[in-house]
């Protein structure tokens, strides 16, 4: 097994964990963390499986950098919404999922 295969498999495992958390978690902060886990897994997979030839491949790296910026902005907005919602309603879950 080469290092790249190991990275790709680790990425796949992170994708699975993140997807599970995004669907199964109730607490919105857990879901946002799960989204980031899923995103990191995808970036790892993209970097490993997308690499062509010897040495570093610039295109996947450019894609990953852009993806990280996008994921960071999305996380910031999601956390902002979560905090604003929790201040008003006193809970950090969606109304229909409150225990």
């Amino acid at each position: 097994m080469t290092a790249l295969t190991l990275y790709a498999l680790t990425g796949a495992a992170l994708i699975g964990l993140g997807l599970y958390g995004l669907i199964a978690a109730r607490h919105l902060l857990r879901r946002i963390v799960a989204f980031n886990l899923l995103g990191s897994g995808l970036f790892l997979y993209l970097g490993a499986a997308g690499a062509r030839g010897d040495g570093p491949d610039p295109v996947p790296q450019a894609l990953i950098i852009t993806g990280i910026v996008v994921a960071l902005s999305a996380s910031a907005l999601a956390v902002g919404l979560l905090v604003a919602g929790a201040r008003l309603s006193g809970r950090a879950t969606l109304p229909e999922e409150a225990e």
Partner: protein
Amino acid sequence: MNALVVLLTLPLGGALAAVAFPAGVARGAALAAAAGTVAAALAVASEVAAGAPPRIALGGWPPPLGIALAADGLSAALLVTTAAVMAAVLLAARHTMAAGLAGPRIAFGFWPLALMLWAALNAVFVSRDLFNLYVGIELLSLAAVGLVAIGGKPEALAAAMRYMLFALAGSLLYLAGVALIYAAHGALDIDLLASRRPSGTDALALALMTAGLTAKTALFPFHVWLPPAHAGAPAPASAMLSALVPKASFVILLRLWTEALPDEASPAALTLIGALGVAAVVWGSLGALAQSRVKLIVAYSTVAQIGYLFAVFPLLPLAQAAWSGVIFLALSHALAKAAMFLAVGQWMAAAGGDRLEELRGLAQAMPMSAFAFALAAVTLAGLPPSGGFLGKYMVMTAAFTAGQWVWALPMALGGLLAAAYLYRPLAALFAREGASVAAPSRARQAVPLALAGGGIALGLASAEPLALLANGQPPIQAVVR
């Protein structure tokens, strides 16, 4: 400067200016940027119509290393329709989103978010690179979520959060498909992918991207976030969210299935998408029938109208007319739905609410916006001579040409259901009871009327848009497998 570049940079620059400058200057800067963007959209459309579609490789790097921006007939039609809707929305917002009426929070946030949304839409319409499309729809989702949450009420924040979760999950599924495509082909450009050597992972990649984008488009059964999100936002925001935002992810899907990976479009997969579309038509219409608030009726109607767009998918590889038909449906829905939300916004401001009983007799005080709603209803129900009728007619012709008459049924059934759910708000509006309310000026009522008239004009003067669309129309896969 190239009009394609202006389409992307000017609204973003306007959004920055609207944040940076004090309120009075900010609105002026936003409106100036909007006027320039409308001009750029028209310039691109005229270049496409003249047979010289603009195309640039960003930074001088051609694909597969760089990113190509290009406009074809589909892009041009969507750019112009978006420009018309955005111009109307911003004109309406000039009054209703002012600090005195809407509060300082909305007056500050609305302009940058609306322009950012516009820039993202334009980016999606002209990008030829799958990853650039990802960035475009992500920027679009961030702006759209912000517009849903802009009111700051607990229900609006919950609706925005629910929307955000669907949008984030959808983006990542799409991104997973993009990663698989890049791993297999080393290219993400739509034109390069069209001439690729098929790989075993392409079907999985297409499935992942489709699942993600349908969640963002709110196709049944991923529609649950849409009605509260679209109905909870202020009316001009709802108009953009319902009329324009779903079209972006839909256009990416259309390009994936007809331009980038048409050889992976198996009949079984197309039938599944078509069946979900039919389910959306029925479910959205029944949902609209069950509502008693007109904003929710209009929002559920979007779920049903999105269903039409997907019910056409099984016909796409079989008949040319299906492709133009579905685009006509998308364009006329954009014009009609924006007109409806803007009209509803005026009634809510006058009557203080949007329950059906509160709207009784409003047509007497506001004849023009009531007429706009009625014209938009004609388009949504697909009655002649509207653009909605023409779209349905082309799709039904395609269904009969292909010998697949089953896919003509949802078009007819959906029209009947739309007539049923739109009857109730119309009956309330035109009730013979005098409602004494402070009506907005004729000039303001003319804004939704112009949009609704556009939906009708699309059917009356269809030759020009059809000729525009023919530029770069993908060839059909004539083989019936």
